[in-house]
Every structure is written in structure tokens, then in C-alpha cells.
């Protein structure tokens, strides 16, 4: 059976789930069950097909919807990589959200919206023409807006930001679509490739910029990143894991599509290159590096744990853009590897944090603390996630970053690597801040009696945690998939074996590194357990310089507020949200235009009718150009 090659199968399975969940949204357990089952079946199909290796890269299915308007769908290994990471993550997140959503009194169809955006995301990776891509893109984007707004202050602003940037992203895709359709008369991906091959430099640059606008926005590339912390910070807790871990990958997918498929290495190199690094590639890479740095440093200064992880997401996606921009086999492999890694660890991080928020109702690091004592399993999962995010060698996180570094070094781009190193130092800083603020330090009295996260929340986290650790031993495993994906976009994967990766300048053997760690572990354990275990004493029983601490003031001995105060003082002026201020200016100008428009409209009904009519004409003209309507 070759289910995935009948893309309709997957979409129908998921679509059924989405439909049922939407219809039965009042009966929450029913909706949950339906979405879990359908997404699990879909994930099973995806994994099964992948394991059988039956991805036909060239087959394309067309589904006629109206007259001549048809959806073209298909998969190749390249899109399968993204499809798989999204489709496998979805059931895990859905299982995870069972418990928190059960108790949440919210009057919105969480599961229905979740499933619709999942359908959209899956459709995006399977689309084989730009119009289909656009339709699924919108299907993926808009349900999320209803999931933003968790009732916390400023969630309205987050919603507005997400809406605005969603529009920006959509108009970017529309721009690409119109460029391609006007120059080639069709909207299939092959047309886009032809358009680039035939087009002038101006068209190509426009393509890159529009691609950055469309997909960079989704992947939170600077300077389009400012919506992400707001939106990630304010979505329903269980959804954030999917939002940041899964949906953001479609942006990466699109960026790869534009750079490596539509434009392609040949055209990029035709503009000259230094050590194989092209100007456009360098531009993307440096933007990615700066994104990584800005994200890291902003994350370091957050007290809101969700925002911290959101900025961390921005930072990690910046690494992927570096890999994309640097290009070449090593860096591209690194970028794709990081896609998988990021999906896993960002999901586990948001899940772990969600579990803490579920139990405590608190998301501010300065008000949390000491969770290791009450939620040890969650802490372990979270710790592994943090280690992966910070690329500590005992998790799979290092392999992808290592490939990106080596790729940059191979090309001799000296300046990128120090910036990335600095970004990774910032990663250590924010990682530790969230660990210290949330899990270590003093346990507040009111949290003394909370329990470990429920089993349905733990299982998905533990699955991902185990995956992160196992892959650390065998970094070559995901390379199987990555090498096939790279072959589909006309690239050669770097040398690898199951346990080690090779680049032009160095090598990394996951097994040997892990064995060294294990050797260290044995030595340390022998050293440690040669002496009797320490006597366990109370958290308040600490060094207070001979004075008595204030009684019942446990929160006063938890140091989490302004954790990196000296750097905040030093760096704030340089990172004082100048990008946000720039966008605020854009908003101001556009709202002035809107005000002008409103003064014309003056609340008159006929005005609106004229406006709607005009918009319809505009859309109709666009559709006419390639769809043959009217």
C-alpha cells in the first residue's frame, strides 16, 4: 500500500478528524478522541510509508475543485522530511493536551482549530503548486488566531500582531504567485523554477525578498520576528508546543523551496561566489546569524518563561537560516537536521513548561522555583530539551549545530561562526535562566503539595526525551532521511555513518563522544559513591552569613528576577526593541492610511459594498490570469 503517495488519503484522514472535532467541539472528550485517533493514524501512515521508502518524487496528483482550478499535490523526500516532523509531532501534542484541555473552561473548539491548522500544515508540505500552497497556508494560519488569547494581559495585542504578520506572509506568497504566474502563465513549482531561470536579476531579488517576507515571517526571521514572542507567549499552552515545534517548520520549508528549489544553486552561483558562498546566501546567512543572536539575547532577558522559549525558538530558527544561506552539502544537511532537532526539543520544552504551568498556574520565572522537588520527571524531560537546545553533546542537539558550524567553516566564512558561538553562549544563559527560575531555587510554600504532571502529559515528553538521547549515540540515523531529502533538491549529503558525521574540516562521532561521557560518568560515580550519601537537609537550611532569614519569606530567597541584571543594563540600549519600534512606525503609517480610508467611508453602507466589489474584482483578475475563470 502506498498511502502517502495518494495524498488525498492523508488529507482525508486528517480532514475527517478535523471535521468531527469541529462538529463535536462541545463534547470535548469526543473531539479530543477523534483528533487523537485521526492524527495518530495519519502519523502511522507517514511513518509506515517512510520506512518502506516508497516516496515517489515525481508523481503529482491533481484534484479538480472547480472548473479549471485544481489542487496539485505530491510528496518527495524533501517535503517528506517536513511532513513527517509535523505529522509525528501532532498526535504527541494532542495526547499531551488531553489533560490540560479537559480542565480548561474555554468556549472555543480547540481540537477542531488544531486539526484544521494541522491539515493546512500537512497540505503546505504536499502542495505542488503555488496556489495550493497559498490555500493551505491560509488554512494553516487563520485557525491559530482563535487559539491566541489566553486571557492574559496583552494577548489582544499578540492577536493583532499575529494577524498583521499573517497578512504580510500571505501577501508575500501572493507576490511570489503573481511573479511566477505573470512570467510563466502557470503556478506549478516547475513554473517557478522556470521563471527564475528565465527571469532577470531584479525578479530573482524580488523573489528572495518576497520569500523572506512570506516564509521568513512564519519562521520568525529577523526583522519579521516580533510577532513570535507575543503569539507563542499567548497561545493555549498545549498548542504552543505544536505552534513553535511544528508550524514554524513550514516557514523553513518555504524558505528552502524558494532558495534551493526555485532559485537553485546554479543561479545563485552565477552571481559569483567566494569559496562557494554566494552573495544571496551570505545575506541569508548573516540575517540568520543576527536572528540567532537577537533571539538569544532577548531570550536571556525574559522573565516570562513562555516568551523566553519563544525567543529561543527565534534564535534556533536563525541557525537553520544560517545553514540554508551558507549552502553546500554540510550546512544544508545541518539546517535540515536542525529542523528535526528543533521540532523535537522545542516541543518537549513547551510541553514541560506547559506541565509546570498546568500544575502551578504560574508562568513567571520569578514566581516559580523549586519544581525539581515536586515534578522530577518533568524536570528530566525539560533538562534534556534544554541540553538539546544548548547543543550539549549528550543530546542530539549538537549534531545539527556542528554541521552548520562546519559548513560555515568549510566555506571560510570567518565572521558567521563567532556570531553563532555568541548566540550559543546566549543559549546557555537563557537555558540556565529558565532552569534556575523554574526548577531550581526555593520552592514556595503554596507549591509544596503539587503533584507530578499527569501521565498523559508525561508520556509524549518522555518519548521525545528518549528520542533526543538515543539519536545522540547515532547521529547518522536522521541523516538517512536528510540525505534522501537533499538528493531531491539536487544536493549531495555529507559523508556519514550511523555513529559519526564527517565534514570537510572535521568529524563528529556521536558514539565516541557519548562513550567518553559514559567513561566520565563511571569515574565520577565511583568517586562519588565511594563515600556515603549526603544527609538531606531542608532548602531553607542554607548559608545566611550568620543571620536569621525572615520567616515565611521563601520567595525572597529565590533569585530569578533580572537574573542577568548587569548584562541587561549593558545590552538593553542596543536591544531595546528597535525592530519593534520600526514596525510600530509601519503600523502608524498604515493606520493613518486606514484613517484616511475611514474618513472616505464615513460609515456609509454603500462604501463597504463598493470596497467588497473592488476586492472581488481584484481577486477575480488574479484568478482569471491563471485559472481561466469568467
Amino acid at each position, binding site marked *: 500500500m502506498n498511502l502517502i503517495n495518494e495524498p488525498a488519503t492523508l488529507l482525508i484522514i486528517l480532514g475527517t478528524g478535523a471535521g468531527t472535532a469541529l462538529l463535536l467541539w462541545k463534547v470535548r472528550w469526543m473531539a479530543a478522541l477523534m483528533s487523537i485517533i485521526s492524527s495518530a493514524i495519519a502519523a502511522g501512515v507517514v511513518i509506515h510509508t517512510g520506512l518502506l521508502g516508497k516516496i515517489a518524487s515525481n508523481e503529482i496528483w491533481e484534484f479538480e475543485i472547480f472548473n479549471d482550478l485544481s489542487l496539485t499535490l505530491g510528496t518527495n523526500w524533501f517535503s517528506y522530511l517536513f511532513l513527517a516532523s509535523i505529522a509525528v509531532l501532532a498526535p504527541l501534542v494532542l495526547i499531551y493536551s488531553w489533560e490540560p484541555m479537559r480542565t480548561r473552561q474555554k468556549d472555543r473548539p480547540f481540537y477542531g482549530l488544531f486539526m484544521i491548522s494541522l491539515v493546512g500544515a500537512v497540505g503546505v508540505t504536499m502542495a505542488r503548486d503555488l496556489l495550493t500552497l497559498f490555500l493551505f497556508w491560509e488554512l494553516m494560519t487563520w485557525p491559530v488566531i482563535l487559539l491566541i488569547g489566553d486571557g492574559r494581559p496583552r494577548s489582544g495585542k499578540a492577536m493583532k500582531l499575529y494577524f498583521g504578520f499573517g497578512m504580510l506572509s500571505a501577501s508575500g506568497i501572493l507576490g511570489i504567485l503573481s511573479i511566477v504566474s505573470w512570467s510563466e502563465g502557470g503556478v506549478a513549482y516547475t513554473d517557478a523554477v522556470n521563471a527564475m531561470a528565465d527571469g532577470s536579476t531584479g525578479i530573482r531579488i524580488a523573489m528572495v525578498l518576497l520569500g523572506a517576507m512570506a516564509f521568513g515571517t512564519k519562521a520568525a526571521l529577523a526583522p519579521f520576528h516580533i510577532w513570535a514572542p507575543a503569539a507563542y507567549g499567548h497561545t493555549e499552552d498545549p498548542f504552543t508546543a505544536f505552534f513553535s515545534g511544528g508550524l514554524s517548520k513550514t516557514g523553513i520549508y518555504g524558505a528552502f523551496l524558494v532558495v534551493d528549489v526555485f532559485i537553485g544553486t546554479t543561479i545563485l552561483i552565477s552571481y559569483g561566489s567566494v569559496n562557494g558562498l554566494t552573495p544571496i546566501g551570505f545575506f541569508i546567512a548573516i540575517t540568520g546569524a543576527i536572528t540567532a543572536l537577537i533571539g538569544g539575547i532577548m531570550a536571556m532577558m525574559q522573565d516570562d518563561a513562555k516568551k523566553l522559549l519563544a525567543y529561543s525558538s527565534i534564535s534556533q530558527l536563525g541557525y537553520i537560516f544560517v545553514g540554508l544561506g551558507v549552502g553546500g552539502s554540510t550546512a544544508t544537511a545541518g539546517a535540515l537536521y536542525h529542523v528535526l532537532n528543533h521540532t523535537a526539543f522545542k516541543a518537549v520544552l513547551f510541553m514541560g513548561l506547559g506541565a509546570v504551568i498546568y500544575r502551578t498556574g504560574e508562568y513567571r520565572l520569578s514566581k516559580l522555583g523549586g519544581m525539581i522537588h515536586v515534578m522530577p520527571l518533568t524536570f528530566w524531560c525539560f533538562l534534556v530539551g534544554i541540553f538539546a537546545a544548548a547543543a550539549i553533546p549528550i543530546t542530539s542537539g549538537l549534531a545539527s549545530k556542528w554541521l552548520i558550524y562546519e559548513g560555515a567553516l568549510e566555506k571560510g566564512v570567518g565572521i558567521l561562526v563567532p556570531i553563532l558561538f555568541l548566540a550559543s553562549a546566549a543559549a546557555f544563559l537563557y537555558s540556565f535562566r529558565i532552569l*534556575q527560575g523554574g526548577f531550581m531555587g526555593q520552592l514556595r510554600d503554596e507549591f509544596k503539595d503539587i503533584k507530578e504532571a499527569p501521565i498523559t502529559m508525561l508520556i509524549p515528553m518522555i518519548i521525545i526525551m528518549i528520542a533526543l538521547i538515543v539519536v545522540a549515540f547515532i547521529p547518522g540515523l536522521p541523516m538517512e532521511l536528510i540525505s534522501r531529502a537533499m538528493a531531491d533538491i539536487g544536493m549531495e549529503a555529507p559523508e556519514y555513518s550511523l555513529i559519526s558525521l564527517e565534514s570537510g*574540516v*572535521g*568529524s563528529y562521532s556521536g558514539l565516541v563522544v557519548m562513550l567518553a561521557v559514559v567513561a566520565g560518568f563511571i569515574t*565520577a560515580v565511583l*568517586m*562519588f559513591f565511594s563515600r556515603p*550519601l549526603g544527609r538531606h537537609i531542608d532548602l531553607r537550611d542554607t548559608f545566611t*552569613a550568620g543571620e536569621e532569614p525572615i520567616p515565611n519569606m521563601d520567595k525572597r530567597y529565590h533569585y530569578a528576577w533580572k537574573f542577568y541584571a548587569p548584562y541587561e543594563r549593558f545590552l538593553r540600549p542596543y536591544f531595546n526593541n528597535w525592530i519593534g519600534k520600526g514596525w510600530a512606525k509601519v503600523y502608524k503609517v498604515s493606520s493613518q492610511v486606514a484613517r484616511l480610508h475611514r474618513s472616505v467611508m464615513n460609515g456609509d453602507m454603500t462604501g463597504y459594498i463598493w470596497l467588497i466589489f473592488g476586492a472581488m474584482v481584484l481577486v477575480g483578475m488574479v484568478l482569471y490570469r491563471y485559472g481561466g475563470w469568467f
Partner: protein
Amino acid sequence: MTFSTTSWVMIFLTPILAFILGHLFLGISRKFTARIHRRVGPPVMQQFIDVMKLFGKRESTTHSWVQDMGALFAVIGVIASILFIPIGGEAVLSFQGDLIVLAYLLVIAPLGMALGTGATGNPNSAIGVSRGLMLMMAYELPFAMVLVAVMLYYDTASLGDIVAAQKGAFNWAILALPLSAIAADLSLQAMLGEKPFDQPVAPSEIASGPMVEFGGKYLGMLMVWHAMSIVVEAGLFVDLFLGGGVIFPGDSVLGLIGNIIVWAILALMMWLISVSINTVFGRFKMGQSLKFYWGVPTLLALLSLSYVVISNLGVI
């Protein structure tokens, strides 16, 4: 993966060697500092005695299992990283993981220790750890530039290859990239946690910061970590810039032992340079050390890096 007999022997000997050298280095530095202070100072073996004493304590206290884990992590990380440092030209495991891997391996120990100290619930520890991480961010920029410059100069990321490439008379990287070497030595000062960059443990400010809740064998573990990390960091400098101490042909066992001794002497020299700076300087504040590291050392490292990049392009 092919391991020669020497490699196997070295894998087992390296941690022991690092343990002995580390404590010896600390003992020598205590004597050295004492002489600058016009004191007699403790015997060179005092550091071993101290560690013995700490492990011999009948009782030690812990606040949570993460504190135990932190002490373990510190030693795990340092043992794992010493295995990837070529000693006397003998690349123990370094051909299986290059400088980038090593750069991340080096972080396990401090981050693990940070975990353990954070779990004690003492605000002093938390401040100390936050300072340590901030310091890491400060010196990481020049140090990363140094690493990149060296890697691009030798066109390899493998530390073993870098050491091998420096074989021969007057072929050390310190002569080829002097500015990088200066920047690296300045970064080394913070890496070793010596003044003026010892803010993480500043006793007069945060009562020794991270160590404040550690006692008995827990402190013993941290002291072992500290001693071994000195060897790792000074040894990394030796490998990067001083040819890895390779003077004798390393084919014979005798030559290897000679190389290891030269390596140890060079590492001790780097450590004593750091200690002598330590004795005549006070302590910067956090913001000041960031300003310092993102100033002169970064500039030096950047100059050196641009020189390497430009010369790689064939202009020079």
C-alpha cells in the same frame, strides 16, 4: 575507528594524569602566590591533602538530588573533555570530535555544576552562577574568533590535525597568529576564573558564590573538577598555540613521555602566567568585564581573524 595500543593506554591514563597534574598545578600556584604575598605557603602536596580530607569527611549535606547530580556532572564533563585534548601530540580521542565538539563538551561541566548549585536554593549561589554564565558570554566572543582563526588558518577543525600541523621548528601558531594568541590568553584568564575575572566566586561579594552550599565530598568533587579543568583549559591553549608540546618524535614511548612532560610544563607555564596576573589585580565588576572582553581582546581576535580570512582568499 581504529585505536592503537597507545591510544587505549592513553584513554585510561589521561584522566589520572589530568587529576595529578591539576592538583600539582594548584599546589604549585599556592606556593607561588604565597611567595608573592611574602608568605611561606602550604606544601606543594597540600591540594592532594585537601581533596583527601574533603572525601574523608564523615558527613556531608545535600539539599536535593540535583545537587548530587550537579557534582557528578562537573566531573563527568571535565573527564569527557580531557579525553578530547591531545596530550603531548597524542590525540586521545580528538580525531573523533573536533574543536567545535570540544567547545561544547567544555560546557557540560560548568552547566552541570550550575545545576547543582542552583538546586541548593541559596541566592548567593544563583548570583554566582549567573555571573559565571555571563562571564562565559563575555569571553566567548573573542575566544570563538580565536578558534575560528586557528581553524581557518590550518583549514581543519580537528585539534589533532592542528597540533600535527605545528610540528617542526618555529612552526607554532603563536608565531603565525600572535594576536590570536594574545586574545586567547586573555580569554584564558576568565576561563580559569582568575582575577580580574573571578566574579563567579567573589568571596567578598557573594560569599564564594556557587560553592557556598557545598561541603565534604561535594566540595571535593568540585575541587577535582576545578583542578582538572585547569589542565583542560591550559592544555587547550598549549595545543592551539604552542604546538601541543611536541618536541620529540612521538613514535617511541620515550618520546611520547617526553612530549607529555613538555606539554605539562608548557601548560603549567600558562597557568602560572594566569596566576601571576591573578596576584596583582583586583576584581572587575560584571559589566566591566563584558566591556573589557568585547573591547581589546575582541579587536585583537578580529584583526587576526580578518588576516586569516583575507590571506585564505589569496590576497595576501
